[in-house]
C-alpha cells in the first residue's frame, strides 16, 4: 500500500501497492476480503498486548479520553525488530493511583494514548488514536463571539463529546466469519464488509503477526450503524456474467474457448468484487503523531464529499517510501460525518453563521441553524 504525504503532512491518499485482494468469503451479512502481501515488511513488527484491558482514561492534549480498551498494540521497528511477544513487560499505567483517576476506570494513562517502551518500540492503543482524533475535532468551539452563539459555548466550548461503538461480538455474523474462514498464506490484512458496507480495513506488515491478530478483530469497536441495516442478508457478489469475458462476435464452440472466456471474465470480476473506492484513492486529512524511526504513525479522517455520507477515520503507520505497514480504520455514521462537516464549514467561515448559511443553502434546505439543532449541535446556539 502506498501513501502520499504532502509537504505539510496534513493530507494523505491511500493506495493498495504491495497488498493484493484474494477471493472474498461471505458468512451471513459479513464479507471478508483477505489482503495478501507477496513480500512482508520484516523491518516492522506489530503485536497485541491484552494485559491491561479494561476501562481506561487517558490524558490527551485536548483534555481527557475515556474508553473501554480491549488491547494495546506494540510496534517494533528497525533491524532488531523482533516478534513482539504477547506478554510485554510494561505497565500501561499505575492502577488506582493519582487524583486523576476516574470512578470505574481502573487504568489511567498519564502519558496519553501512545508512548515509547524501548529503544525501538512504541506502544499505543489501536483505533483509539483515530477515535480520539475524531472526537477532539468535534470539540471545536466558536472562536469568535458572534451574537448567535451562547456565551457558555464561546467560553467553555463543547464540554464533552462522546461516541458509541459496539464490539465485534455485536456485529451479527462476524464471530462466525472470523472463526470459519482460513487465513491465507501471506495474508496480512482484511477488509470487512457488513451488509455491503466497508466496516473496517485492517492490515499489518507481516503474516505471522496477522495470524495472531486475526481473531482479535472480534474485540474491536465497530460503528453501530452497521448493525442497524435491515434486513441483514448475504451480500455475496455472485459470478454470473461470463459475458464480461467475451470478445464481440466470439462464439463459444468448445471447452477451450469457454475456458478462455471464463479466465477473462474472472479477471474482470475479481476487480469488481472488492470495491474499495470508498477509502482508497481519496484524500484524507491526516495528523502525524509520532516518528518511529523511518516510520510515521499518523491518524486520518476522510474528507466528506457532498452528497456522499461515507466517511472513515483511521490510523496508519507509513514508511519513508509511502508504503503502509499498518492500517486500521473505523466507519462513521452519516450523522457523525455531517456534524463534523458542519463544524468545519463554520470554522472555514470564521464562525460567522450568516455567511455560512448563505454558502450552505443548497446543502441544508432546512437552514443551517435548524440543521445544527437536528444534529445535536444546538448547545452552541443561544
Amino acid at each position: 500500500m502506498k501513501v502520499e504525504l504532502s509537504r505539510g503532512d496534513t493530507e494523505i491518499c491511500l493506495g493498495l501497492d504491495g497488498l493484493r485482494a484474494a477471493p472474498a468469503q461471505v458468512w451471513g451479512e459479513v464479507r471478508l476480503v483477505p489482503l495478501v502481501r507477496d513480500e512482508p515488511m520484516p523491518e516492522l513488527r506489530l503485536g497485541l498486548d491484552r494485559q491491561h484491558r479494561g476501562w481506561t482514561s487517558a490524558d490527551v492534549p485536548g483534555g481527557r479520553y475515556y474508553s473501554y480498551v480491549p488491547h494495546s498494540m506494540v510496534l517494533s521497528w528497525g533491524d532488531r525488530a523482533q516478534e513482539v511477544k504477547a506478554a510485554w513487560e510494561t505497565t500501561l499505567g499505575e492502577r488506582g493511583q493519582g487524583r486523576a483517576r476516574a470512578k470505574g476506570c481502573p487504568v489511567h494513562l498519564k502519558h496519553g494514548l501512545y508512548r515509547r517502551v524501548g529503544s525501538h518500540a512504541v506502544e499505543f492503543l489501536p483505533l483509539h488514536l483515530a477515535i480520539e482524533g475524531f472526537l477532539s475535532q468535534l470539540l471545536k468551539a466558536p472562536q469568535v463571539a458572534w451574537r448567535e452563539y451562547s456565551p457558555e459555548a464561546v467560553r467553555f466550548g463543547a464540554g464533552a463529546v462522546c461516541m458509541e461503538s459496539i464490539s465485534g461480538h455485536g456485529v451479527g455474523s462476524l464471530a462466525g466469519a472470523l472463526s470459519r474462514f482460513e487465513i491465507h498464506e501471506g495474508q496480512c490484512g482484511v477488509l470487512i464488509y457488513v451488509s455491503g458496507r466497508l466496516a473496517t480495513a485492517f492490515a499489518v506488515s507481516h503474516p505471522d503477526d496477522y495470524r495472531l491478530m486475526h481473531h482479535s478483530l472480534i474485540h474491536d469497536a465497530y460503528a453501530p450503524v452497521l448493525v442497524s441495516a435491515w434486513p441483514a442478508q448475504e451480500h455475496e457478489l455472485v459470478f454470473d456474467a461470463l459475458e464480461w469475458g467475451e470478445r464481440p462476435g466470439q462464439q463459444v464452440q468448445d471447452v477451450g474457448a469457454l475456458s478462455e472466456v471464463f479466465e477473462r471474465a474472472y479477471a474482470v470480476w475479481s476487480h469488481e468484487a472488492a470495491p474499495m473506492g470508498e477509502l482508497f484513492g481519496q484524500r484524507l486529512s491526516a495528523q502525524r503523531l509520532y516518528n518511529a524511526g523511518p516510520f510515521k504513525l499518523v491518524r486520518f479522517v476522510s474528507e466528506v464529499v457532498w452528497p456522499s455520507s461515507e466517511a472513515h477515520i483511521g490510523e496508519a503507520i507509513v514508511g519513508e517510501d509511502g508504503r503502509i505497514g499498518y492500517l486500521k480504520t473505523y466507519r462513521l455514521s452519516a450523522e457523525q460525518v455531517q456534524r463534523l462537516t458542519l463544524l468545519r464549514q463554520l470554522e472555514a467561515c470564521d464562525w460567522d453563521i450568516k455567511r455560512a448559511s448563505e454558502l450552505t443553502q443548497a446543502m441544508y434546505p432546512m437552514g443551517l441553524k435548524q440543521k445544527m439543532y437536528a444534529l445535536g449541535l444546538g448547545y452552541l446556539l443561544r
Partner: protein
Amino acid sequence: MWSLHVARQRIAREDVLLFMNAARAGTGQEEFYEGEGEQALSLDFLHEYMLVNYRELYVRTLVMGLNHYNTGLVVGCLLSAGAPELESEREVEAGLIAAALESLPAPQAYKALRRLRHWGVNNARTRQAILHYLAHREDLPFHVIKYRGHIKALARHAHLRFGAQTERVLFKGVEKGGRFEEPIYEQFRRAHYSDDALLGLPLTVAEGLAASRGVGRSRLLEDVSQRGGMTRRERERVQQEAGRVGAQVEVDWSRAPLMRLCTYILGLSMAERRERVEELEEAWLKAGRREWSRHEASFKAGPVALVVDRSYSSGSSRARRNQPLALGLALSGMLKACGQPFKTFWSLEDASVERPILVTAKGQSGLARPLLRALAWGAKTVIIVSDGYENDPPGGVAAILSRFWADVPGAQQVELVHLNPVMSALQYQPKPLAKGLITLGVREAKELGVLLALSRYISGVGELKELRTLLDARVAAMSWRDLDGLNGVSASKVLGP
C-alpha cells in the same frame, strides 16, 4: 389426465431427491457451516412423509445404502406403522427389516429398537422384530454382558423370556447367588472382585467395572493385544492410547474398509503420513480395488473425471473431522480401479496431487477451473464432490454449466452429478452448486453406483422402472438365512442360558 400423471411423476422425483439427500447425509452431528440440533427435526418429518406417500419405495431405500442412523429410523418408522396390505409386500418388508437390523452395528440396532419404546409403539411386529434380532445373535451371552442396558430395556418392552442365568445377570444382579455355568457370566461375576478376571472381559465392559473399582487404565491395557471381543473401531481407538502406555495393539490397515482408512489417513499428521507413505498408499489402493469389486457402478460412457473440493471447509467440524475430504480421497481410490480412463481434478493443485494420501484441507473453494480442466480433458462422466460452498468465484460452476449446456455441442452426452457430503438442515437438502445439476447427499464411496442410478432417474434421463429393477436386484441379493423374515422365531422362545 396425462399432464396430471406427468406432474405426479415430477413431484415423485423431487420427493425422492429430497429424501435420499436427507437420509444419506443427515446424522444430527455438527457440520462446518451449521450447528447441532438443527438437523434432527427435519429428518423425522421426511421419514414420516415418505412412509405415508411412497411406502413401497421407502421400504426399498433400505437397500440404497442409507447411513446407520437413518436405517434405524426407517426400521422404526416401518414398525410403528401397520403392516402393509399386500402379502408380497409384507414379506419383502419383513425380510428387509430383519436384514437391515442385521447389517447395523449392534449398538445402533439396539438404539433403533429402543426408539420404538420411546415412541410408545408396541405392536406384534415390533415385539417379533426384537425377539427375532435377539434370537439370532450368535453369542447372546456376550451381548448380554456388553449391552445389558439395551437388552434390559427391550426385554421389558417386548415381554421377552430368558433363561435362568441370563435373567439373573440382567435383572437380579450377579453378586448374589453363587457361580454361573456360562463361562462369560462367571467371568463377569468374578470381575467384580478380581483383577485377573477383569482382563478377560470385553474391553468396554471391563472399562466400566474398572472405573467403579478403581483399577488403573494402564493395568487394563496391559494385556490388551491378547484381549478378544473388541470391535474394529474399539481396536483402533485403543491403538493410539495403548501406544502411550507401551502396549501394542495390531490393527491391520490393509484390510480396513475404504472410508475408515481414508478418515484415518487424513487424521494422521503430515510427518507420519510421509513416513509411512508406501504402506498407506498400498492400503488405500487395495481398499479402493476391493470396494470397486464389491460395489461397481455402471457408467454410460468413459472417460471418468472426479472433481474434488479440497478447500478449508472440507475439513468440516470437530464431530465430523475431515469427512468431506475423506470422501473425495475414497472415491479417488475406488475409481482408479474402474477400468475406464480416470483422472482426479483437485480444487488446489500442489505436490499432494501426485500422492493423494498426502492431501490436506487447504485453499479456497474453487471448482470452476477444475471443472473446465476436466471437460477439456474429454471426460464423459464428471462427478463433482463438494460441500456446495463455492467462493472462487461464487456461482462459477453455475455460470460455466449454463453456457456449456447452451452453446457447446456434445454437451448433452456428458453425464454430470454433484455429490455433497454435507446436509443443510435449513433446506432439507444439501447445498446445490448449480440449477440443472443434480445434487445428491452422500455418505460413503461405495454408494456411487446407486447414486448414479438415482441421478439418472431424478434428472429424467432414466425411468422409475429402471431404478426399481436395480433395487429389486439388490433386494434379491441380500442373503438372509431365514426366509420367513421375522416369522422364524416363535413368540414363546426362551432366550439365552
